[in-house]
Every structure is written in C-alpha cells, then in structure tokens.
C-alpha cells in the first residue's frame, strides 16, 4: 500500500508557538521560587584574593550568597577542569565568581553589585599559538586529578592517519598549501539559557531544563549530587525549547549553580539568562587555525591531504574540544583521497570556552578543505565543479577513515548546481561577479559517540483511538513533533492527528542518548517502525477476538431500530483471523472487503471492549522499542563506521561584489541536498533555508569580536545575524536516493546545510574579485582590503 502520510508536507503541529500559548522556561514559575543571578569575573586571568559578600547578604530579600569559599569543591565539565564557583583564580571573563538567590530579579541584581571581589592579576594569553609556546602563562597549573600541567595543550591528541602521505605527495603533479582561520560564532538561540532547580523533602532534585540531552544531563547532575554528598536523584523535565543548535548539549555551569542555590535555600531557584549573558556566558563555536596541504595528479585525481588544526579551547573544556572527531569525517572522506593525515590540537587560553554548534566541527573543516579544493583546481587548470566531479564520492565505497558510504548522490548535487547557476557562463571572470561551490558530507544515520546511540520509544493506544508516543528524544524546534506523528501514523495505521507525543521527563520517558548529530528522525523513525509493527500486530490480534461479536451486535441493534434493515449475509468468521485484517486511519477492516462499511470498526471500540471485559482478563495495547543502530565507535586510530549512512550535498552561490565598498550580495543560491527521503518536504526545506542562512551568516557577517578575552559585541545589534530583510534567494533542491539503512529511507538533515555555505560563499567571492580571503567572516572591510591589496 502506498504511504499515506510520510513524504507529505504536513503542516506543523506546534502552532501554539505562534499564538504565544507555548510555555517556555521564561513562562514557568514555581511557588516560593527564588531568582538566581551570577557574578562574573572582571578579569581575564587573576587570583581571587578576597571576596566580601557581607553587604549582599544583609540586603533585604536576599536568601543566599554563594562563592567558591562556601561551597564544596566539586569538579564539573567534560575534563573536570573547573568548579562551579571559582575559588583559586579566574581564567576568563565569564568565570562565575559568586551567585545570589533572592525573592526577585531586581534584588538579586542589586546584591551582585554589593559583592566586592579583590583580584591579583596574572599574565594572560589570548592567542592559541602564543599559548602553546614554552613559558606561556599556564591557564591550569594542575589537571582534574591534581597532577601538575606543563603546558596549555589539552590531553586530547586528535589524530588520524590513513594510507601513505609521502607516497601521495610523490605522485602529485600539483600541490597547494595554505592556512585559514575561522572565528567565534554564537548559536544565538531565540530562547536564552535557563533552568529551575528544586529539591523535594527526600532530597530528590527536580530540574526543569532546556537541555536536548535529558539523560546525559541527569547523569551529570546525579554525579554532582553524589559529589556534594546529597542522597537524592534527579528528574529532568524539559518544556518547549527555543532552539539549541548544539548549545544545550552540555550541562552548563549556571545549571550547577542553580542546584547549589536550591540546595542552600530549600526553595525552587530559577536562573534565566538575558541576551547579554547569553552572549558572554554561554559557550559558542570555537575558532580554528587550519593548515591544509593537498595534491592531485595530472588528471586532477586527489593524491593526499594533510590537515593540521589548532583550536582555541578557551579557559575550560566542554564539547567544543571533541569536535575534531567530526572534523575527521570531511577531512578524510570529502572526495576520494587515498592518503590522509590529520592532527588537531586544542589549546587552553584566557578566552571564552566553546561548545558544540550545528555541524560540530564540520563547518570549520569543510571551510578549510573546500577553499583548498578551489586553489588546487586553479593550480591544475581544471574548472572547480569538474575538479569536484573527478573526485566525487560514489555510492558503496569505504573511505580511508572506515566510513561505509551507502547512497551518495554527490555528483547529482554538483550537476544541479552547475545547471541551475548556469555555471560555465559565469565562472572565472573576476569582474566583481562570481560563482562558487562547496560540497559536504555529514553523518546521516546517527553518530556513535557513546557506547550507545539508541533511542527508546513507547507507543500506547487508548480507548479513544489515540496513540501516544512516549519518547526520550527532545524537540528544540526542528519539527520532530510533526514528523513523529507522520511516521507513527504511517507505521500503526492511524492518522497524524490521532497521535500525541509525550516527551521531556526522564522519570517516564524511555532512555535516549540525546537529540544531537542530526540523529533524531533517524533513530525515532526506526523505533517507530519497531514499536509500530507490534502495535499493529497486537491491535489486529485484539480485533480478531472482538470484531465478530461487536459487528454482529451492531447489526442486530440496527435491525431492531430499523425494521427495513435486513441483516446481510456476511461471513463473520473471516474476522477472527488477524491475517485477514488490516488497519488504516484508525479503522480496522477486512482486507478482502476493505470498502464494506458493515465490516469495519474504529480501533477505539475494539480497545474499549478489550479494556472493559467485565469479569475476566482485559488487555491493553502498549509496545516498546529500543533502537540502537549498527554504527561503530571510532577506534584508537580514529577509524570506524561512525554512522549508518552519510548525507551529501553541494551548495552553489552567485555573488556580486561591490568593488568600491567590499559589500557582497548573493544573487543566487542553490542548495542541493541528499536527504535520503523527505518525510516532510516542507520541513526539510525549512531546515535547508534556516541552516543555509546560519552558514551564510558564518561566511559573511557573524563574528563574536573577542578582544583580550572580552566579548565586545554581546548584543543583537552588533552581533550581525542576518535578518528577514537580508533573505537569500535560496533554491533548495531535495535529492532522494532512498537510504536503505534509514527508516522510510530517510537521512538526517538538521545540521548539513550549515556546513558548506561559508566555503561556497568564500569561493564565489574569490571568483568575483580574483583574490582569496582566508579568514571569516568576509566583512566588507576585508573584501575591500583584499581588492585594494591585489597584486601587491
């Protein structure tokens, strides 16, 4: 039977977001709730010699003032390299020095102003290359275990070697080498960070959180409680979340502080960031310095690629330091390159520290590789698209990293760009008008970064004929609330409007690894297929027990009420075999006679009968699934099949550069994406539009200006997000090779479009002005300086 709901542009179900009725963390209040505020460091690197909180404590309405001096020394974070409230010293401007809980925000803020902190300045270092040098100021004197540290390099030596780079080099006819830089960019979620922490009388913590990793967050908070000596466990509840883009992957310091304040005051404590705090005290995407060398033979076939990345880790470590694991994917596998060497070094500095952001290292890596591809194409005298076609990935091949590519329409995507941009006519003019292209690949079927990449799901059918999907996943705006309904309806035989979703409660929802790595649709889709098949089977079995007698009763009743009605001669015994039955639109019917209204019953009636059996054994319909995909963790060499499948695509951009002002205007933008299969084409396009604009902002305007450790533009005026008026004429092209490993054929699409936008734009600008700009963003000043410096 053809699919009824999957593959259709079903409108979104979360319309209450546009009516103002949706409840976000901002809207939630608890009885006796206090407001927590955090005092941040005034210095980038200094010893704290003294903190005087006495005035703040005396302020009426203040319920608690905490510092590192009156809270336990409990290490938190990915490498355990910080404590929630700093005591020995501060290492960045966002260091949390003190926290206040008060009866309202105004008093809490006033209390912060009354806290006196005395510092003794230490030499600071803000440049990762300087920080790597011998004799550079040590950001951390000891590691989490108390072992002395000798330098600022993190103990995370990311490395991948495959093939023989020397041999590749000797086989090369053309070689290019260059260094590129990217800057800090912020996720800028519409909803800022926030939480409410509350302990019950048994010392259990209820934590209302905007996390997109509820179970990981629960683990971290449970460990925090244990280390504090609190014998309770955590229940995480998530309300509607206004975007994540990676920012809500880790448990952030303010969350630990809220727990400390709630424990101290025995009241619910809410911490909610304002925009300034969001920009200065929540971790963004980190900058890199990337040096890439690669070569090709005389026919343009890639021979080797060597990439060295230096990541400015900032003062502490969150997930940003693990992004090289994903950088490896494009560095080893974007195009067919037999010989690979990749090394990444994360360096502590006195800058703000970094988290994950849409693409997880892939935007930086692809930016570096794709600019080098254009440079090599020029060197080899081959058109950039032809050069990419020569080297394009193909279906069913295994890359040097061990990624097993299944479906791969990279060539098709490149051809779409070529045709739709009228590439041949426009490329290579250097007259202010230019075109550029960049491809990408990204994980499309999960990413096994932990020992599990699973998602749990429970489906429950009630006697109103509704299905509830209880899932461990979260929605932060990506549209899963709509596609889950479409897929559940398809898998179970109900309608999307008959499906309800329950999520965001670790006490009830089955376990899930987290909504990251573009994995949600893939994992929940598989879980839905597994649990949905059980629901169908159970329902049909139940129907075979009840349908005959229910229909017989119905017919007799009708005959009693209507003297003209004659009970037809039907063989009700057929109904007692589940194999003869099918379910669609919440109705169960006879396969051999699907249009017969007399032999059809709504699920509700059957389930109700099975619930209400009088004396005897009733039944209910509940099914569960725990889908863990067959992907692999990377081994010690950084190799393995990280994802079940990989998604590919190409972005092509046509730009006009104002050669007097340096302003770049995007005239045309083709975003060709392999999505496996679009469950909801409208939402897929939404992801492509949104992520492309985010990527274009990365390329053109977005930049956290960090000067000596301080964020200089922590507001939406000076952090230049593109606005609705800056809309880019994006032509999203959905390519559907139908992925065999994906549920309903799909691949993940949450992150990919954010990846190739900046390099495609950079390549187009280089084509337009005949000179390449090697650091992001391509501001008018940099473009004009490049034009003026040309030929110098």
């Amino acid at each position, binding site marked *: 039977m053809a699919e009824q709901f999957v593959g259709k542009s079903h409108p979104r179900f979360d319309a209450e977001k546009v009516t103002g009725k949706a409840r976000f963390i901002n809207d939630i209040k608890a009885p006796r709730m206090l407001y927590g505020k955090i005092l941040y460091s005034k210095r980038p690197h200094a010893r704290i010699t003294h903190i005087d909180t006495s005035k703040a404590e005396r302020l009426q309405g203040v319920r608690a003032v905490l510092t590192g001096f009156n809270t336990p020394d409990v290490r938190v974070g990915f490498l355990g390299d910080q404590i929630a409230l700093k005591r020995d010293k501060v290492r960045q401007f966002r260091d949390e020095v003190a926290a206040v809980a008060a009866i309202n925000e105004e008093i809490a803020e006033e209390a912060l102003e009354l806290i006196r902190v005395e510092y003794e300045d230490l030499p600071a270092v803000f440049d990762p290359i300087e920080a790597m040098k011998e004799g550079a100021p040590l950001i951390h004197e000891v590691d989490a275990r108390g072992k002395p540290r000798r330098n600022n390099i993190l103990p995370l030596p990311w490395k991948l070697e495959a093939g023989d780079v020397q041999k590749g080099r000797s086989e090369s006819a053309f070689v290019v080498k260059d260094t590129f830089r990217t800057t800090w960019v912020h996720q800028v979620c519409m909803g800022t960070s926030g939480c409410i922490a509350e302990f019950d009388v048994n010392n259990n913590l209820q934590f209302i959180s905007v996390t997109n990793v509820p179970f990981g967050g629960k683990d971290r908070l449970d460990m925090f409680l244990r280390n504090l000596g609190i014998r309770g466990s955590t229940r995480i509840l998530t309300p509607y979340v206004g975007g994540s883009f990676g920012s809500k992957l880790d448990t952030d310091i303010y969350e630990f502080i809220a727990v400390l304040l709630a424990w101290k005051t025995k009241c619910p404590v809410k911490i909610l960031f304002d925009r300034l705090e969001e920009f200065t005290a929540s971790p963004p995407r980190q900058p890199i310095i990337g040096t890439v060398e690669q070569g090709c033979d005389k026919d343009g076939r890639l021979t080797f690629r060597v990439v060295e990345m230096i990541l400015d880790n900032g003062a502490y470590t969150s997930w940003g330091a693990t992004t090289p694991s994903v950088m490896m994917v494009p560095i080893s596998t974007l195009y067919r390159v037999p010989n690979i060497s990749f090394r990444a070094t994360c360096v502590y500095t006195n800058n703000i520290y970094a988290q994950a952001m849409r693409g997880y290292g892939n935007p930086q890596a692809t930016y570096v590789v794709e600019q080098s591809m254009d440079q090599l194409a020029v060197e080899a005298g081959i058109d950039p698209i032809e050069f990419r076609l020569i080297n394009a990935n193909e279906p069913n091949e295994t890359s040097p990293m061990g990624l097993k590519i299944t479906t791969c329409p990279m060539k098709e995507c490149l051809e779409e760009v070529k045709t739709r941009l009228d590439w041949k006519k426009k490329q290579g003019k250097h007259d202010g008008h230019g075109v550029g292209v960049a491809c990408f690949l990204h994980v499309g079927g999960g990413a096994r970064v932990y020992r599990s990449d699973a998602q749990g799901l429970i489906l429950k059918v009630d006697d109103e004929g509704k299905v509830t999907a209880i899932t461990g996943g979260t929605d932060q705006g990506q549209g899963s609330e709509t596609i889950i309904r479409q897929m559940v309806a398809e898998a179970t035989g109900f309608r999307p409007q008959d499906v309800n979703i329950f999520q965001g409660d670790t006490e009830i929802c089955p376990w899930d690894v987290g909504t990251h790595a573009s994995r949600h649709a893939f994992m929940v889709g598989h879980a839905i297929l597994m649990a949905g098949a059980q629901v169908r089977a159970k329902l049909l079995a139940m129907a075979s027990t009840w349908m005959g007698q229910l229909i017989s009763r119905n017919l007799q009743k009708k005959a009693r009420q209507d003297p003209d009605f004659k009970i037809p001669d039907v063989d009700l015994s057929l109904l007692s075999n589940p194999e003869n039955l099918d379910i669609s639109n919440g109705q169960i019917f006879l396969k051999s006679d699907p249009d017969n209204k007399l032999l059809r019953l709504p699920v509700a009636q059957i389930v109700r009968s099975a619930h209400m059996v009088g004396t005897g054994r009733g039944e209910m319909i509940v099914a569960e699934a725990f889908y863990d995909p067959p992907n692999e963790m990377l081994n010690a060499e950084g190799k393995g099949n990280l994802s079940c499948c990989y998604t590919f695509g190409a972005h092509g951009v046509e730009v006009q550069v104002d050669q007097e002002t340096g302003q770049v205007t995007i005239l045309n933008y083709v975003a060709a994406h392999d999505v496996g299969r679009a469950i909801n084409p409208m939402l897929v396009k939404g992801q492509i539009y949104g992520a492309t604009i985010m990527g274009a902002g990365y390329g053109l*305007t977005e930049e956290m200006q960090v000067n000596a450790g301080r964020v200089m533009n922590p507001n939406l005026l000076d952090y230049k997000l593109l606005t609705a008026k800056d809309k880019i004429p994006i032509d999203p092209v959905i390519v559907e090779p139908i992925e065999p490993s994906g549920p309903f054929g799909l691949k993940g699409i949450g992150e990919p479009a954010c990846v190739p936008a900046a390099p495609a734009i950079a390549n187009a600008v280089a084509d337009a002005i005949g000179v390449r700009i090697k650091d992001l963003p391509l501001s*008018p000043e940099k473009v004009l300086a490049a034009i003026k410096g040309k030929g110098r």
Partner: protein
Amino acid sequence: MRSYEYLKPTSLKEALELLGRYGEKAKLVAGGTDLMVQWKKKIISPEYVISLRNVPELSFVTYESDLKIGSATTHRTLELSPIIREHFPILLDAVSNLGSVQVRNSATIGGNICNAAPSADTAPPLLALDAVAHIAGPQGERTMPIAEFFKGPSRTALASGEIVTHFSIPRPSPNTGMAYWKHTRRKAMDLPILGVAVLLSFGQDGKTCAKARISLGVAAPTPMRARKAEAYLEGKEVDRGALDEAGKIAAGEASPRTTIRGSQWYREEMIRVLVRRTGLMCIERAKGAAHG
C-alpha cells in the same frame, strides 16, 4: 532596574512643569527605543520618567511655508507621510531604514536627534535640509539651527528643563535633489557604519550647483557638515568628477574613529565613495523633480 515613577503629562506645559520640578532625577521618554537600552545597561537610572506620548502638541507633520515636524512624531508616521514621500526623499531614506517597522512605530525623530548619537539616522538629513530646532523651556521658546545642536556624543545644546518641540525645514528650491545613504552590514536592525546625506540645488540652467549640503553620520564625534566639500561644489557644474573630488575633501574634513562597527580607514574610504554615489543620486532625483 530600580523602581521609578512614570508620569504622563497631557500638555507641553505640564511636561515642562514636571521636568522643571524633578530636574536631573527625571528623564523624558518618547519612543523609548534609545532610553530603554541605556536604562537596561545602567547608563541611566531615572527616578522619574516623563512620557511625551500623550502630548498632542509634539506630534504632527505640516507643510505650508515650510515643513514642520513635531518632535514626538514617529519614524513610521514620517515614513508613511505623503508630504515626506513626495517632497523630502532624503528624510524618507533615513526614517524608512531605521531599525525595524516595530522600532519605527515607536522611535521618534526628536528622540533620535536628542539622543545625539553620532550614528543618528535623521541627523545628516536634517543638517542637509538646514533644519531649525524649536525649543521650549523655563525661559520660554528659542530656536537653534540643527548644525549648532550637537555638542558631542550624547550631548546637545539643550539646557536643563528644555524640550525640543519641533523642527522646521525651509522649502527646498526647485531643481533640488536630495538623498541619504545608510551604509550597513545588513538590511535591517542596524546602525550605519557611515551615513551620508547630500542635497544639491541647481540653478535655472539645471547644471550649476547653487547650493550644496553634504553631511555625515559616524564620521566625527557628532553628526557633521562637510562645509569645504559643499563650498567646492557650489557654483560648479556638478558631475561625477566633481563629486569624486567633493568626496575626497569631505573625507579630509571628517575624523572617523575605529570602533567595533568599522575601522577608520574603511570609513574614510566610504566617505569618498558614498559622497559621490549619493551626489549622483541627487542629480538623478533633481531631474525627476524637475520633470515631475
């Protein structure tokens, strides 16, 4: 934000009385789009906030012998005003590219001027139009050419207790072209990296420049006129070459700084380019005005 008293006078007289009574403790608020930002950043913390929103004398647009704009007139009102659209395209350029529609619905021209930011979008057009500020205060009313109004970043010539009531702008002569160009990183919700206003009035031959005004935003501590560049153009037949030269002169008169929004060299470069481009727009518009 500490607690404060919000006062809502319904006449200019009452507003002046309240301002006189509370003095330095009070702040005037019209649209609030600048005030609220400063308040939240704790640059100011008024005990009394005097709203001008309900003072009818401060919100109007009339065009008789001259153009008069009440100080509490919103940008959106000006943007939609047929008078502004038809006769003062230089103001339309400025008011229709400020913030967003939501901001323009609230922000007023008086607020934009009295906030005295070097980047104020309406300042270069008012300078180019030879606008006069009408000021009411404890000593009665006085007037002041807008060119004398700005004293520094966030500083004006207003004395304590004074309120700008309206601006008057002389009727431009026929054969006049005028334009404002706001150079930004993005198309909305932005402040100018540089603002350039040019007004060119041509003689009866339609070629010789009878009057030139070139004014710049974000090019100095206050919005400024490039008087040498203006003088260079007056009496000349204005073409691309002349405007190029005027741009160079203007860049020499300006003293832009390097800030997070743009560096000095870039701003100087943009003065050269944008004075010429805006001047060329004026020539086009003057032709249109002559024929229309």
